[in-house]
């Protein structure tokens, strides 16, 4: 599966859904220990209990090098990993509302 900005993916182990903001190469993207699925795919898998810290709607998730960035568009119990590194939330810079 080729990752590209705008691609929507869902978790195989929980309700989580994400959208790719910044894409990186490779298949190493997982939620709850299982590969993320494209919208049309229908598969259920058992979660890896060590990968279940949750992900929260509206939060942006990045790896340390910020080569990959996901927007969580539906919360779930699984946590997001890329190439076995757990993704961290990235803060949107607080700006005053301008419109």
């Amino acid at each position: 599966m080729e990752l590209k900005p705008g691609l929507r993916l869902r978790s195989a182990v929980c309700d989580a859904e994400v959208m790719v903001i910044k894409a990186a190469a490779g298949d190493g993207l997982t939620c709850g220990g299982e590969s993320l699925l494209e919208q049309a795919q229908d598969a259920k898998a058992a979660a890896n209990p060590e990968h279940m810290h949750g992900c929260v709607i509206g939060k942006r998730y990045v790896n340390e090098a910020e080569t990959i960035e996901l927007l969580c568009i539906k919360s779930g119990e699984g946590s997001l990993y890329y190439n076995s590194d757990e993704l961290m939330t990235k803060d949107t810079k607080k700006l005053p509302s301008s419109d």
Partner: protein
Amino acid sequence: MNIALFLQMAAEACPDRVALTHEGIHYSYAALYEAANKAAHRFSSSDCEFVSVLDVSSPAVPISLMGAAMAGIPYVPLNYRLSEQQLGDLLDRIKPVFLIVDDFKAAEFSDIEGLVEGRQTFLTSLELAPVEHFSCIEDPSAVAIQLFTSGTTGTPKAALLRHEHLVSYILGSVEFMGAAEEQATLVSVPPYHIAGISAVMSSIYACRRIVQLSNFQALEWLNLCSHEQVTNAFVVPTMMTRIIDEIENNNFSADALGSLIAIAYGGGKMPLPVIEQALDLLPAVSFTNAYGLTETSSTVTLLGPDDHREAVNHDDSSIRSRLASVGKALPSIEIEIRDEHGRKLEHHEAGEIYVRGPQVSGEYLERNALIEDGWFPTRDAGYMDEHGYLYLSGRADDVIVRGGENISPAEIEDILFLNSGISDVAAVAIPSQQWGEAIALAVVLKPKADLTAESINALIRSKLRSSRVPEVIHFVEELPYNEAGKLLRRVIKSWFS
């Protein structure tokens, strides 16, 4: 990547929160999302290639915007104040169209190519339609919004904003569900203005309730603020001037605005005395100045609340003058000032403002205005100081070239705005045998002001150089603005020909 995702997320995270209030009617995020889904079905099965709203603000505006986005059809809001001829020309450019209008006007458009529906008929049809989920069209490069520019300088251009531009803008500047449940934003800019559109998107993403005011009137704005416990608002400078006037003239007590936390303004030049007065009359309110263009998906620079409060009473004049600045670039935006040959200028050197960033479209249906490396020449003139604060001096086309010397109208206007006898003023270029161009001044005096052309000339000569003294001064009742608060210099020029 589709702007409708913002509404889908809001409906997922807080379905029961109130999303929209219009004349006492409320929509929750779940209801708004459902209506947008149904609208997407209707638009998609109509075979129309455009969705257009030719109407004041109403629930039909966000529903059509989001429904059209889901269906992958460009949304084209039209200015209801245009003449029949002007509207006919624009409608000719968007065929076939699903057109939503005031119910009383539907009959007038019965012969257009496509489908016409009254606003209320449209909203009722959605209420009656079965609940159906619509699968969003996922194409980041699809056109989300086609917005005709105001055409102050010629035939309106069709600016294109793609989903990727708008999504970049919102994700980069708004925190999802960043608003508390009691927050509400008063939207009084017309729906065909980029500020009106970005207000809808950013409020939905922040999950901040939108309170719509269809036709701006200062007293009604103030009453609605108080009645709906409004916390945020965006106004154009002419609106701010009128709001301040109502408070100053004791038609409305500022005490009744206790809920108000923040006012953002933009869309035109804010006269310094007006913002100073506003800061004085509403000490608890945070003010933000936003500068942006249709072609940049709205805001690219911000002067925040702290900058305002720091500037207004500062002893250092360089900091005090920041009140006249439009602030600093958003984190994802780069700005350069360039001369007429495209060379980058230094701090404090005035030239044309160039903008670059993922939210910048810079594209019209007719041509792409982006130049090398994605820079967009805005045609706005200004300069930047060493701290990154941007100062506007008008449109690049408004610069008066007198005997080879570039004179920004703002130079002269700013000096005169400080005079207590002057309520409004504009400097424009007129043809001159001797200088190529000369300065003409249109002045609106305050009641009982005893200024003459001679005293105004003397004032300019004492504060600036003699080359800034106008050739001719007209005293007028008021200056012409369009409804978005933009000064119509072309009309003023015609007074002198």
